[in-house]
């Protein structure tokens, strides 16, 4: 283990948050079992009080998730000089087998925590807790994932020994090798680009339709999600080439470095922001048919659609700008 302040901060933060989440999950379980809004019993009163604790814990956990995601990649980037062969986060994450799983789980848990807060926000606006079972079901599902993240992250940090020889973006993200990443990178550019703009166009169209007509929420969620996946592929397959102005450098992490004006951060933020609010739209479709949320849910969904499209648009503008004003010119 490397005793770096950021590593200590991340580990301690994750462990503490996990402890709070275990407590929340336990309370969530109690709520699922014993909740009875009609009753004025003391049990019910104490359960209702516990919902405040859980909401607060989740809000803190989500904020921590967002900040720790960026702190984590920045740290990986920062530590790369310690490992032979590592030039950026890609190499540091590759030092042992827990690096990339931690990274992925951080993104997934970001989505879950965000989704939970969206549902919680909606539920709290109704006078009869209509989403309570659903909400705490989701909580019981998400907490183990966050615990897994803590454990895997800890294993990752424990397995970081200076001097380990690793391979970095140059080797990991090349089309020459065999493997998933290589085949992703080798994806043909033209179809991908067409798909990206088609997906973005469709998302915007569906978003607008949903905004005015209130129809096709799930469709929007799926199109938006698919577009984002295409966007991620496009990022490593060709967009980042323009950022690096190198025809062969496909790394999704170097864009976070100061040489590239930290352009990766807004890219990641808009990507995640669009994702979580897009999923939120679909997740709230069910709530529209609930009596006490009939008016509230659509209003929240509209806001989510706008936010999601806004993020997507910024994402496209940033990447389009990078491509248009790059010194790299590619013919294909």
């Amino acid at each position, binding site marked *: 283990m490397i005793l770096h302040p950021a590593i200590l901060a991340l580990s301690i933060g994750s462990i503490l948050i996990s402890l709070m989440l275990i407590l929340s999950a336990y309370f969530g379980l109690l709520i699922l079992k014993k909740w009875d*809004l*009609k009753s*004025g*019993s*003391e049990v019910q*009163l104490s359960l*209702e*009080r516990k919902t405040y604790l859980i909401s607060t814990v989740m809000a803190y956990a989500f904020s921590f998730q967002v900040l720790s995601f960026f702190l984590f990649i920045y740290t990986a980037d920062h530590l790369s000089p310690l490992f032979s062969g590592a030039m950026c986060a890609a190499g540091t994450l590759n030092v042992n087998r827990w690096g990339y799983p931690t990274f992925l789980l951080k993104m997934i848990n970001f989505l879950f925590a965000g989704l939970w807060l969206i549902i919680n926000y909606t539920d*709290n606006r109704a*006078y*009869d*807790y209509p989403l309570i079972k659903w909400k705490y079901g989701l909580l019981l599902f998400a907490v183990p994932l966050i615990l897994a993240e803590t454990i895997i992250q800890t294993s990752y940090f424990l397995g970081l020994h200076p001097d380990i020889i690793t391979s970095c973006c140059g080797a990991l993200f090349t089309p020459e090798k065999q493997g998933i990443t290589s085949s992703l990178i080798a994806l043909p550019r033209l179809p991908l680009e067409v798909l990206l703009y088609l997906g973005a166009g469709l998302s915007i169209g569906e978003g607008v339709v949903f905004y005015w007509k209130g129809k096709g929420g799930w469709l929007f969620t799926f199109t938006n999600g698919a577009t984002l996946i295409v966007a991620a592929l496009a990022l490593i397959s060709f967009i980042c080439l323009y950022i690096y102005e190198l025809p062969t450098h496909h790394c999704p992490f170097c864009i976070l470095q100061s040489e590239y004006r930290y352009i990766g951060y807004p890219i990641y933020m808009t990507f995640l922001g669009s994702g979580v609010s897009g999923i939120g739209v679909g997740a709230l479709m069910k709530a529209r048919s609930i009596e006490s949320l009939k008016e509230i849910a659509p209003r929240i969904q509209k806001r989510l659609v706008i936010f999601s499209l806004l993020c997507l648009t910024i994402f496209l503008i940033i990447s389009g700008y990078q491509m248009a004003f790059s010194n790299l010119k590619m013919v294909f």
Partner: protein
Amino acid sequence: MIQLQNIKKVFHMGKPNEFVAIDGIDLSISSHQITVFKGPSGSGKTTLLSLIGSMARPTAGRIFLFDREITSLPERFLTEVRRKTFGFIFQQFNLIKGLTAIENVMTPAYPSGEKRGSLAKRAYELLNLFGMAQKASVRVDWLSGGETQRVTIARALINHPSIIIADEPTAHLDTKLSIEFMDIMGKLNQEGKTILIASHDPMIHESPLVHRVIEMRDGKIIRN
């Protein structure tokens, strides 16, 4: 406008020290009246007022406020109802020590997100109404009993409540101040406020301003 149906409040239910404070009360209170609850100590007056004022929830039964059931509302909404509908005057005054009179009057309105400027103006007008304008920026710790009482009333009125709940309001006041208090209540009643008072004080029971006296014993209504 306020309706109670078979309301029960049991403390420590199912435990050896179980105690039934309110034992099945049916009651309907009409608007624009001054209603007084009387009865011996421990008869459940305070408990009943806190149930009506949506500060606590009944163990059983239903409460309607303006024809809307509030019994099983989540705490969030219950608080909103409380903030918008009720103004409270407590026996111990319960002002916040260390704050000035005007800050105390403003405090109940903070969560509603009103601009501080307009809020301060309204609080000042209320204090002025009760002749407390020149004491607005005095810390409440230094105020006399009567002045404290008037700040308390001003605070109860800041959110434009339609119902005022007062629990033993005259317990710490002398006769002159008690009369003054009832005069103020009478005025507020004329402006259209509904007023609920719990008290032992015969001066309140016998006041000509009171429309209705309800007598309680052991958590039940014995005379209406």
